[in-house]
């Protein structure tokens, strides 16, 4: 069975092992170790890790399309944000009449914009199952339409990158408009509960952290299964010689579309986990710069390895957390320099280094993609 194939790969098992260990460790240090003890991991840190994990899932989604399909999407932030908004709408509805205006149904921003009733597209978001479904379907649908148009007309390389950028930019402007009914620039915030748990309780935070971990694990295995399958090899073939793949009888554009949609859904899921942990979703998640940053995480971690994406996402965001606290005036220098140095001197990213170390010990597992430097 193709889905179980990854569990025979050493790399995957190692990854899952490390992830699981980390999750358990954090949980223990948070729950078991008393507050004030040097080893205690406080709610703030748990929350932070949860955020990193959702970012990591996003990075994996990007690596799937960029690393293995050669599509440099500069618009994956859009799918992430859409997933986030779907979740945000659910959380908004959970507030009920505890908003500042105490309106039983309408979110605060609608009250003071004088809306008398919920717009149709808010219907159903008070039901968890519906909202969570939308978390996957909305980004998926957008990816389907956009990808269908783009791949059908064989938009490739830089052109594709730029129009994905245009896509997310347009969405950002659209969501900024208050008429859209998504809270304009303030977005959605002041969440209270998720599935009946108080979002501001440490338990909820721990729960979300663990959920993110599980989601990451599932997403990772799914992507592994895909890239490990024959379909994955068709993707790599497409990435390196699209025309040739066509002459072998593969309908390249459909493979691209399939993987693109899967990736978009994963990104949406990541967004949905991200929002309740940071407590706000607003149009800035659509900003093209954010989407570029995601790509940078992947590049820094090492593309076409999946675990590299995870490493990159966590590394960069951890660095951000530290730098913005330690050297507020100069952290951008550090970040910028990091990007430059890695792209120039570590073309295969951090994962490249690891793979190199491992190669020394045993022969490389037949993950062909890591084998060769590719220019998408």
């Amino acid at each position: 069975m193709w889905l179980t194939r990854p569990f025979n790969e050493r790399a995957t098992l190692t990854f899952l092992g490390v992830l699981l260990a980390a999750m358990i460790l954090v949980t223990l240090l948070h729950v078991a170790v008393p507050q004030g003890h040097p080893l205690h991991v406080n709610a703030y840190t748990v929350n932070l890790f949860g955020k990193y994990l959702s970012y990591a899932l996003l990075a994996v989604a990007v690596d799937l399309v960029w690393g293995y399909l050669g599509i440099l999407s500069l618009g994956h932030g859009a799918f992430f944000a859409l997933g986030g908004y779907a979740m945000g709408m659910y959380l908004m509805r959970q507030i009920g009449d505890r908003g500042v205006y105490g309106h039983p149904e309408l979110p605060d921003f609608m009250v003071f914009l004088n809306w008398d009733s919920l717009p149709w597209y808010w219907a159903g978001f008070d039901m968890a199952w519906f909202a969570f479904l939308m978390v996957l379907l909305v980004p998926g649908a957008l990816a389907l339409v956009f990808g269908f148009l783009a791949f059908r007309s064989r938009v490739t390389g830089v052109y594709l990158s730029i129009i994905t950028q245009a896509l997310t930019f347009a969405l950002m402007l659209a969501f900024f408009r208050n008429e859209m009914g998504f809270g304009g620039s303030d977005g959605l915030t002041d969440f209270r509960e998720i599935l009946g748990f108080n979002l501001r309780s440490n338990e909820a935070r721990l729960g979300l952290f663990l959920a993110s971990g599980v989601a990451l694990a599932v997403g990772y295995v799914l992507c592994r299964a895909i890239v490990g399958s024959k379909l994955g090899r068709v993707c790599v073939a497409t990435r390196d010689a699209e025309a040739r793949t066509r002459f072998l009888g593969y309908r390249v554009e459909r493979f691209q579309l399939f993987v693109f949609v899967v990736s978009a859904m994963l990104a949406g899921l990541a967004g949905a986990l991200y929002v309740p942990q940071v407590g706000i979703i607003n149009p800035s998640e659509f900003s093209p710069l954010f989407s570029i940053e995601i790509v940078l995480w992947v590049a820094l971690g090492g593309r076409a390895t999946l675990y590299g994406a995870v490493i990159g996402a966590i590394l960069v965001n951890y660095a951000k957390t530290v730098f913005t606290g330690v050297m507020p005036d100069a952290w951008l220098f550090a970040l910028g320099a990091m990007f430059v140095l890695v792209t120039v001197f570590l073309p295969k990213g951090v994962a490249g280094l690891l793979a190199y170390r491992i190669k020394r010990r045993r022969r490389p597992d037949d993950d062909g993609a890591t084998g060769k430097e590719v220019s998408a």
Partner: protein
Amino acid sequence: MSFLRSLADRERVFDFLVPAASPVDVRHGPILYLEDVTVSFDGFKAIDNLNLTIDDGELRCIIGPNGAGKTTMMDIITGKTRPDTGQVWFGSRHNLLTMNEPEIASLGIGRKFQKPTVFEALTVFENLELAMAADKRILPTLTAGMSGEIRDRIDEVLLTTGLAELSRRPAGILSHGQKQWLEIGMLLMQRPRLLLVDEPVAGMTEQEMERTAELLTGLAGKQSVVVVEHDMGFVRSIARQVTVLHQGSVLAEGNMDQVSSDPRVIEVYLGADADEEVA
């Protein structure tokens, strides 16, 4: 408004809904049939009402000076380039001009490129696996496993192409000649009805050439083969029917001796080594 049309056939996005292509019909006549094909790139006529028919099981060599339109002709047959006018039929049932590359390929037309293009990031084995004739729609591909029978076929081809010991190495490290072989191997995996082979022996040693010649002649009969080649020696060694292209249209056709004695051919093509050829 093709945009609307595309939206209309959106449900065709997923492959498993697409009916498999019907088999080639060669009961009455040729397997490949080009009529009055013309294509021009901003003014310049690369193909100028070209007429060409390949019979089922035939081995045909096509020669001609650079810019005679050999590669362009291949592009037209495989759907990469669309002609301005003319007709291209595969058997008597399939109008190739209405199909795209993958459709044409799945009909059973295999192509080997002038510049060998293999998937360098994949291993030799995987290259052959991808090329293999199989259900090439998304879900089957996703769930495809590795049956013993498939393995045997791949191994068999690995032997014929002499790449067996390299099967686990990424194709990127192969030499030019080995890549040629790998690509021929991929052709074999496809089990096509018609092979289009563009300069197969470039960068090959003498004995490699001989083996290629054997291979191609061996294929002929079961499958139809069209070889485009510069190397006269090689052509002579395999050729039965030869077609000479010049400025995008057929200049002469016949067996090697007829062709090479044709004054027009000598003039436009054989040129310098004409006397040697005629003698």
